[in-house]
């Protein structure tokens, strides 16, 4: 039973609330990723689970057990730190064994556990070395190993890949996912990297300003962001946001974008909310990958006239920066190559890919 | 090196024979055996331990002598074990009383007895000396009167029993002496100075090594008719002190005189670079050991002053027993004192260590142990013999007892030395020493 529950947890540092009234459950065997920009409170949330921070209010539950005021050593959790925090004066073996030795495990059991973890992580040949004699990737594996040997109820990981170079990070990500499948243990994982979050998570918790913005599967977070923050934070580049006014064209709902009118087909899920909105304004979001760019307007789908300002060729795709009006810009990700800038084009998209947010609360209409 | 050891072996053999033949009979009164018997039963396995603090390090002949006596004592007294600790006992034993960890007995100077008395640290020896296991009256009567007087406080309490008697005398290097054409030792101060000048001129060695302490000026002062303490008032600004200072100025500023101090008294002499050395009897064996047989060392007594007689200063160390010791320990300590001051042991003490014996009654034993060599000068026992002569002269003085004695002595010495160094006139020195010493006595000054 390795379920971690934050029950109305807040954490204050002096006059600042790092985490504000969070209620969250990391379910058994789940790979829960806390995602958010730096300073959003995700690390503090994790450290409270570890017992390294005391919540200012609220409760922490491990399974059924209230562990709010229980020392870390009595929680049976393991943690992987961003900087690994390996003990510099100990060999890899001793680093792995330290926790077990403190728990008065028999020497034979310690040896077995350490060798087992080392074998899984490919550290056998490094056991006699000290951390400073290891590469970044090796250190990262030792840090993982140190967490694994104790076979804890759950793993807590604080940006464990952030100190690796891009290639290694991608490799390790895969290993980590495999490891999770293999260990079948709860993992709570903190990152600011949405790719890690999307690829690894069973569920993602998006945080900002000490508050949970949205909890959901990667797909749900991607497809149905509950507010503008989540919508923009997930995806690279972030979702295009356009201020619109609602109008009617031939009796049908249309969005007025800058100087252009965008007629919309009926039956979209958010339309009722949009129509009943007090204000006639809204923010419309559309992901760059859902935009199509063409020399001529597409028939059957809403199209907007634009001008290419800048092109970023990426090889397998191209980022096209577009001006609608002087103050209205869009980014499109297209498989087509657009070698020239400053040419007029048409932008079209499937209206089902539109996200509409209340301009004041920034909350998605479909979530209301 | 070899000669010293062989000589010591002979002496020790003779010493143990003496102890067997004469010593035991004389020193063991009839009560002693029964005392031994009663304690032997219960304490044979655990002898009464008597810790003795004294400053005779094994580095010199005196140290050897005291160690020999102690080991013989421990062998012949199975119920007692004396354990010697070499330490500057006079100062340290009092500190140990304060620390609550004093020894059973110690050898201290007779001046510090005031501080010890104030601390209530010492056992009164009267009961031991005159009690059933007392000191043999034959010897008691023979103890040098000035020495005996110095062992009492002004109100006639006795905490001290003599052991280590220092009296001043002069040593000379016989070979240099001969080289300079001198035949007989000097008998007056002017002769002494003349001889020193001749020595220096003829041999190139330093003529006279004088001392820098009260051992030096105090006897001179007394032999000039001085006495500085009458009851409660001082008599320092006197013609006798003026004469004394003048004499010292002349002597110490003479080209043939070298003023020696604590660390440098023996080296020159031992190297044969010094004609005459002012020292005390106990230094004789030490000097001879340092000389190591390179040349014979002669001795002559301190010349007389204007009074026509010499004044021999008794300074030295005495046994004390600490009140904090158990009655059994005190009794055992007294047994050791009696043993040490018995003729047989005094003979060892005098011949090996070079100290004169405490009593006229011991002189025969010393002579017997020294044998035919006793009268030889230069000779191995010349230091002891001259010291005995000085003690027998009757003109022995002891340091005047007073609570601020050390301070007063320091004042006098400082003033004398200032005058010698021509930092002030004799009359200023006399006035200063009187006023400053008075300040100490009245408690207005402190150091």
């Amino acid at each position: 039973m390795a379920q971690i529950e934050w029950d109305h947890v807040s954490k204050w540092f002096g006059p600042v609330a790092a985490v504000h009234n969070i209620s969250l459950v990391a379910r058994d065997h789940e790979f829960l990723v806390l995602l958010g920009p730096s300073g959003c409170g995700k690390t503090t949330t994790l450290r409270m689970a570890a017992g390294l921070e005391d919540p200012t209010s609220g409760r922490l539950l491990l399974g059924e057990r209230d562990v709010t005021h229980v020392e870390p050593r009595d929680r049976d959790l393991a943690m992987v730190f961003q900087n690994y925090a390996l003990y510099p004066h100990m060999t890899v073996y001793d680093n792995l064994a330290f926790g077990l030795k403190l728990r008065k495990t028999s020497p034979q059991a310690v040896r077995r556990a350490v060798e087992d973890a080392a074998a899984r992580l490919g550290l056998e040949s490094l056991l006699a070395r000290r951390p400073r004699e290891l590469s970044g990737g090796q250190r990262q594996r030792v840090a993982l190993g140190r967490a694994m040997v104790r076979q804890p109820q759950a793993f807590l990981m604080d940006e464990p890949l952030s100190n690796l170079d891009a290639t290694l990070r991608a490799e390790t990500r895969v290993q980590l996912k495999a490891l999770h499948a293999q260990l079948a243990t709860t993992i709570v994982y903190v990152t600011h990297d949405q790719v890690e979050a999307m690829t690894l998570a069973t569920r993602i918790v998006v945080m900002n300003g000490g508050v949970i913005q949205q909890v959901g599967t990667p797909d749900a977070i991607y497809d149905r962001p509950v507010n503008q923050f989540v919508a923009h934070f997930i995806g690279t580049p972030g979702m295009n946001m356009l201020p619109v006014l609602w109008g009617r064209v031939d009796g049908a709902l249309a969005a007025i974008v800058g100087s252009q009118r965008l007629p919309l087909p009926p039956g979209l899920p958010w339309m009722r909310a949009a129509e009943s909105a007090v204000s006639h304004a809204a923010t419309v979001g559309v992901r760059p990958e859902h935009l199509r760019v063409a020399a001529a307007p597409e028939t059957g789908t809403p199209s907007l006239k634009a001008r290419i300002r800048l092109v970023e060729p990426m090889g397998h795709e191209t980022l096209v920066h577009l001006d609608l009006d002087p103050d209205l810009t869009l980014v499109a990700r297209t498989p087509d190559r657009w070698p020239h800038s400053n040419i007029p084009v048409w932008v079209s998209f499937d209206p089902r890919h539109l996200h509409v947010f209340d301009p004041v609360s920034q909350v998605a209409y479909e979530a209301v | 090196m070899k000669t010293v050891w062989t000589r010591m072996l002979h002496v020790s053999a003779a010493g143990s024979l003496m102890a067997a033949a004469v010593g035991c009979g004389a020193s063991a009164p009839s009560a002693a055996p029964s005392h031994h018997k009663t304690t032997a039963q219960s304490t044979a396995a655990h002898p009464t331990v008597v810790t003795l603090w004294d400053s005779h390090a094994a580095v010199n002949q005196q140290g050897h002598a005291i160690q020999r006596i102690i080991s013989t004592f421990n062998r012949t007294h199975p119920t007692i074990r004396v354990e010697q600790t070499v330490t500057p006992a006079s100062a340290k034993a009092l500190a140990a009383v304060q620390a609550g960890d004093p020894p059973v007995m110690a050898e201290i100077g007779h001046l510090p007895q005031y501080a010890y008395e104030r601390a209530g640290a010492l056992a009164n020896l009267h009961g031991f000396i005159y009690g059933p296991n007392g000191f043999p009256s034959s010897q008691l009567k023979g103890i040098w009167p000035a020495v005996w007087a110095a062992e009492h406080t002004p109100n006639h309490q006795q905490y001290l029993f003599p052991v280590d008697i220092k009296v001043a005398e002069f040593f000379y290097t016989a070979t240099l002496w001969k080289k300079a054409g001198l035949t007989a030792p000097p008998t007056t101060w002017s002769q002494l100075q003349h001889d020193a000048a001749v020595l220096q001129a003829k041999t190139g060695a330093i003529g006279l090594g004088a001392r820098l302490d009260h051992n030096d000026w105090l006897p001179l002062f007394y032999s000039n008719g001085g006495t500085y303490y009458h009851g409660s008032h001082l008599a320092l600004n006197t013609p006798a002190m003026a004469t004394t200072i003048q004499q010292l100025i002349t002597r110490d500023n003479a080209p043939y005189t070298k003023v020696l101090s604590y660390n440098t008294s023996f080296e020159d002499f031992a190297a044969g670079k010094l004609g005459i050395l002012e020292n005390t009897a106990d230094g004789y064996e030490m000097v001879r050991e340092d000389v190591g047989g390179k040349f014979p060392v002669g001795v002559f007594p301190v010349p007389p002053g204007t009074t026509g007689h010499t004044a021999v200063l008794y300074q030295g160390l005495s046994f004390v027993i600490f009140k904090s010791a158990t009655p059994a320990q005190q009794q055992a300590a007294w047994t050791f004192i009696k043993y040490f001051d018995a003729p047989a042991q005094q003979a060892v003490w005098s011949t090996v260590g070079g100290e004169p014996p405490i009593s006229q009654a011991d002189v025969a034993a010393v002579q017997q142990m020294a044998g035919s060599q006793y009268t030889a000068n230069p000779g191995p026992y010349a230091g002891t013999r001259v010291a005995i002569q000085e003690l027998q002269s009757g003109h022995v003085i002891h340091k005047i007892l007073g609570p601020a004695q050390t301070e007063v002595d320091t004042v006098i010495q400082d003033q004398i030395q200032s005058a010698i160094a021509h930092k002030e006139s004799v009359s200023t020195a006399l006035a200063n020493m009187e006023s400053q010493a008075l300040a100490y006595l009245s408690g207005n000054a402190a150091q």
Partner: protein
Amino acid sequence: MTNTAARPSGRLVRRWARFALMAVVAAAFLLPFYWALVLSVATRANVFTMPPDLVPSWDFISWARVFTLAPWGLYFLHSVIITGATIIAVLVTGVLAGYALAEVPFRGREVVMGVLLAGLMVPPEAILIPNYVVAYHLHLLNSLAGQVVPFGANVFAVFLFRQFFKTLPVELWDASRMDGARWWQYLRHIAVPLARPVVMTVTLLTFVAQWSQFQWPLIITQGNGARPVEVALSYLQGFDGSHWRELAAASLLTLAPIFVVFLLTQRHLISSVAGRAQI
């Protein structure tokens, strides 16, 4: 300017002059030790000579005699116990207080820091007598403990440890907590082992200071019960200063541990002393 050709040779001369001067300086500073060695192995005839004999004659009789003059084994044992115990005490108090001042927030921490710094301002000479009085009332006179306790805490050691602990990353503490360590286990297994250079510095400085300790043991020791080597040596010279050979041997005997430690830890020792001055 005019003699550009002469310049390199001038530089060479200067270099050799510097080497010669260094040799003279080194010789001058080592000469007293060397002469003590010569005296300690001199024959009787070679001691009181003028000019002094500077060639050793390798007569070890005085070394043999030194051991009969005083129970050196006992005195060395005392000095070793005193020095060792002081080192342990200074390390323990220094680690604990340094850790608290670096990592444990508690009310009054600033006050404690101020109080410690104020303690550095008190000259030990000036409080010699009250120290003696305190030692008297604590029954520490004439004891080994009496020579340890007054030196059992060292402000400098506290600050050294504090400085070091402040440089340790918080993650090490977090990681060890996750591994199940309590604060003392963190100290024992992580912080103190990492502080080995500081431990070494404190050990060396305490060793040097305690082995050379003189005035305090002179005052508080009386008999043989707690006498350390330096005091014993001082007395030996007092009892008969003319035994140069034995005194030289005894002096070298008490210097030997210092020499050994110096040879083994020279670099660290010098930098420790340099660091000591900077506080």
